[in-house]
């Protein structure tokens, strides 16, 4: 086992769906001898690519969960997180990027930079993950890697520079020219495992020399030694060139671009070399934790085994031996038998079995050194929890977790399904913070919510397949919200005198809209007009009120409640009386505060052949969409719009029929906006009908 931090690479493979990243990962594992046979994705040979450990992924040909796996290449340990490509699962991508030091951005040489690549790239930027690009599928019809490099510059603003040029393209693609060694590389053997180095074919010499000049020019920005060598016309060594490119790549100011075809077993080994040569080791990256003892001041973590341990649980999986928790150790080392603490819960945890994962196979290890990724057995925690040594109250930066925007009711078909459904939901909600489940107290229905139709669909299918839980689903419901639009005062007296002890409480103050906060309660009562022991009863009552808005029973958000006056009675005032008074006060103020209903608005990006641009825009417009713009890229166009989620149900079918299946779209939550009056009236009508039906 390698323990030298400098020899470790924690990398992710991120890309648009269908760019071939799972195939690429499979080939990497094959060439690093972690697996001994190559399987095709989509389960054509009944086995499926090794990284797709879930049956459902095998069938759909997409990767949903990030499986971490490790392999070795030329004395380096490469830990790979295979990340999902669909936008509905971006929390997985975000979480993976949080623990990575570097990434390979896989692009299709035909499709180029597609909408999802833009999203993934933005995420990489947010987490400052250095990357190298791999232009895959150079054997496909229409392959044009240099167009993709242009797109990397134009669409993603990368300073992308070719490290190779292809030898032939499409069906003639036979290898690559390495612009540093200035050699042609061919991939021989049944599975491309033998590299044959040859002179550059004569027809490519001039192009290779030009491209090498461009490479040196770009790299010299990051090395004075290289600039000097060029100006003095001395020989430029491979090491000098690699070191300059690495400097550029680590600061994200240069993106080295490699090319090949994973499916045809070409170009993967040079990419592995690039991962070891150009991407950072854990010590090259500064990671910070938040000090909970000092108001969450960020403190740097040191990639040093001798320091107290700080580790992040970034993924949970339910295996045959119980819960498997993937962790990244940022500081110190995590050894078998150690006692660590879950910073969130304060619970003490004894480290039992430690493993290194290779997709769904595992290898037992004694410890996980600083900077490494591994997995723990039998630890109860949630995704995103921080583990630390005793006395260390640090937490890794909390990740931005969006609120779910869609929900639906599910009911188990039989008793067995009911028991398994509970188990499944408990697992899924722990694994994925954007997936939530709760029981509606009034109807007794189980409600699940998530980030989109596909997100929820996948979990329902996983329930069926992994937990044998068959459920009937209701219609998807949009997560509407209520809010107020102006300040309104309240002054309410709750008084009841029906014999015996009475009830008395007066609450006065105001409600006002607030940005970026769900609910704020402020007590400005002076002189004890509401005795301090009843303040919390008032707050509790206000909190209860916002759970179900007075207008349509949707949760109320973006509201600030200030109480500044009131009155009490020495005998008749009680917590109950003040709760009732606060409820009355809320209803009184709310009615005057111009309440509105808000709905989730999604950012929708459609990629379509240009001839369908008009009809696609029309279809978005019909769905109350606001089209931000269209990007004309010759044969393809990209349309970006903001569309209410409520209007997006079934859009994939509409888009397919409009464009003969040639367009695709991605969707992600953007913001909440007030719904138009007509729609609000319709919602009111529906809610009233529902109430009548229940009655």
């Amino acid at each position, binding site marked *: 086992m390698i323990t030298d931090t400098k020899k470790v690479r924690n990398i992710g493979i991120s890309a648009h769906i269908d760019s071939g990243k799972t195939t690429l990962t499979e080939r990497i594992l094959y060439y690093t001898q972690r697996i001994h046979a190559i399987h095709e994705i989509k389960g054509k040979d009944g086995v499926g690519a090794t990284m797709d450990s879930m049956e459902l992924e095998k069938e759909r040909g997409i990767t949903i969960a990030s499986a971490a796996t490790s392999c070795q290449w030329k004395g380096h340990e490469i830990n790979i997180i295979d990340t999902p490509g669909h936008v509905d699962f971006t929390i997985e991508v975000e979480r993976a990027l949080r623990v990575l030091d570097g990434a390979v951005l896989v692009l299709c040489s035909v499709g180029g930079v597609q909408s999802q690549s833009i999203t993934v790239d933005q995420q990489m930027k947010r987490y400052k993950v250095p990357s190298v690009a791999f232009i895959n599928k150079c054997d496909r019809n229409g392959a044009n890697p240099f167009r993709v490099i242009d797109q990397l510059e134009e669409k993603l603003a990368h300073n992308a520079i070719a490290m190779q040029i292809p030898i032939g393209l499409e069906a003639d693609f036979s290898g690559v020219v390495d612009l540093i060694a200035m050699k042609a590389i061919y991939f021989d053997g049944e599975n491309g495992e033998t590299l044959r180095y040859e002179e550059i074919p004569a027809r490519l010499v001039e192009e290779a020399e030009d491209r090498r000049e461009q490479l040196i020019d770009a790299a010299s920005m990051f090395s004075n030694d290289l600039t000097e060598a060029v100006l003095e016309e001395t020989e430029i060594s491979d090491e000098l060139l690699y070191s300059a490119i690495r400097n550029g790549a680590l600061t994200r100011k240069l993106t080295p671009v490699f090319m090949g075809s994973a499916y045809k077993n070409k170009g993967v080994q040079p990419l592995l070399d690039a991962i070891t040569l150009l991407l950072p080791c854990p010590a090259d990256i500064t990671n910070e934790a938040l000090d909970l003892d000092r108001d969450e001041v960020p403190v740097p973590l040191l990639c040093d085994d001798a320091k107290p341990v700080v580790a992040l649980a970034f993924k949970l999986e339910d295996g045959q031996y119980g819960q498997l928790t993937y962790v990244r150790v940022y500081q110190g080392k995590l050894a078998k038998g150690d006692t660590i603490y879950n910073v969130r819960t304060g619970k003490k945890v004894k480290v039992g079995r430690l493993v290194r994962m290779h997709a769904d196979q595992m290898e037992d290890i004694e410890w996980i050194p600083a900077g490494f990724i591994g997995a723990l057995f039998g630890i109860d925690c949630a995704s995103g929890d921080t583990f630390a040594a005793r006395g260390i109250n640090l937490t890794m930066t909390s990740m931005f977790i969006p609120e779910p925007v869609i929900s639906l009711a599910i009911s188990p078909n039989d008793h067995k399904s009911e028991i398994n459904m509970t188990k499944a939901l408990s697992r899924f909600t722990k694994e994925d913070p954007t997936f939530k489940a709760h029981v509606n107290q009034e109807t007794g229905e189980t409600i699940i919510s998530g980030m989109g139709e596909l997100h929820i669909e996948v979990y329902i299918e996983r329930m069926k397949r992994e937990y044998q839980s068959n459920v009937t689903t209701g219609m998807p419901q949009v997560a509407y919200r209520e809010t107020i639009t102006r300040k309104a005062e309240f002054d309410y007296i709750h008084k009841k005198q029906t014999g015996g002890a009475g009830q008395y409480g007066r609450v006065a103050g105001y409600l006002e*809209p607030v*940005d970026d906060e769900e609910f704020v309660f402020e007590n400005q009562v002076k002189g004890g007009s509401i005795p301090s022991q009843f303040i919390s009863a008032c707050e509790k009552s206000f909190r209860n009120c916002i759970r179900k808005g007075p207008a349509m029973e949707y949760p109320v958000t973006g509201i600030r409640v200030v109480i500044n006056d009131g009155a009490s009675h020495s005998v008749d005032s009680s917590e109950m009386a003040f709760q009732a008074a606060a409820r009355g006060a809320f209803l009184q103020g709310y009615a005057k505060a111009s309440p509105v209903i808000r709905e989730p608005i999604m950012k929708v990006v459609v990629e379509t052949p240009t001839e369908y641009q008009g009809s696609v825009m029309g279809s978005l417009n019909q769905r109350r969409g606001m*089209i*931000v713009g269209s*990007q004309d890229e010759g044969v393809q166009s990209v349309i970006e719009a903001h569309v209410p989620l409520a209007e997006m149900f079934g859009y994939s079918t509409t888009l397919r029929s409009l464009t003969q299946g040639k367009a695709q779209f991605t969707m992600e939550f953007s913001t909440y906006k007030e719904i138009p009056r007509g729609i609000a009236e319709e919602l009111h009508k529906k809610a009233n009908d529902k109430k009548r039906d229940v009655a």
Partner: protein
Amino acid sequence: MLKNSIKKRTIKSGMLRDPEMGITPGRKDSTMHNNDITLRTPLRFLESENQDILKEGGFGAILARAGVGKTAFLIQIALDYLLMNRNVLYISLNDPVEKVCLWYEEVYRNISKSWDKKQAKDQWDSLLPYRFIMTFKVEGFTIPILEERLNDLTEQGVFSPHVLVIDGYPFDEPDEKNLSNLKNLVKQRSLKAWFTVRTHRHKEPGPDGMPVSLLTVKDLFDVIIQLQPIGSETHVNILKGATQTEGVPELLLDPATLMVKNKS
């Protein structure tokens, strides 16, 4: 060749550190607050009697060297129209939609920085339906394609522009016929169009101060505004078709924000 290019770059990067190009803090305008949305955008300084300086069917151009602030100026003009509830079709031949959006947000942030936060946000939300962004590759932008796209937008009831704002049109070798066709299209549809025109330091201007790139097509333009860096200041010079609003001091671009301001 490589050696030369690196030499050139070394010289260029030295120029970037020229103290004359240094950033000076922008002037805070005390007239803008809460309910008093006083706009400091180009058209307000240039219009006369509340009339738009560019008539229907007209062409306007913003000239400057690279990096002086043409796009920022153009976005200010576009925002001006949006604030007048005019539909603006912004066509970029340089940047993707996302980048254009960022430009708009940045310029709007500068315009509205002293407004009430909520008011600025509400105003912004109300402006967005008046804006449509279209981007093309320079080589893919032709007048028939633009016409086709305009038809798509109007026939589908998606958007009906009043103003075209075109950033990045290749004026280095302007094709008079193409521009005339574009002008006809603009006239037929009762639009008006603003362009950015990149000028070059090494090319001497014509006798009337007009840059070489516009010499053959200047008659097609009704308004021509030049952004000229002099020392640490960028002056807004009107070369054709407009007069500065009376009583308003000379116009400058704030070097920090690229927003238009008066010389004070």
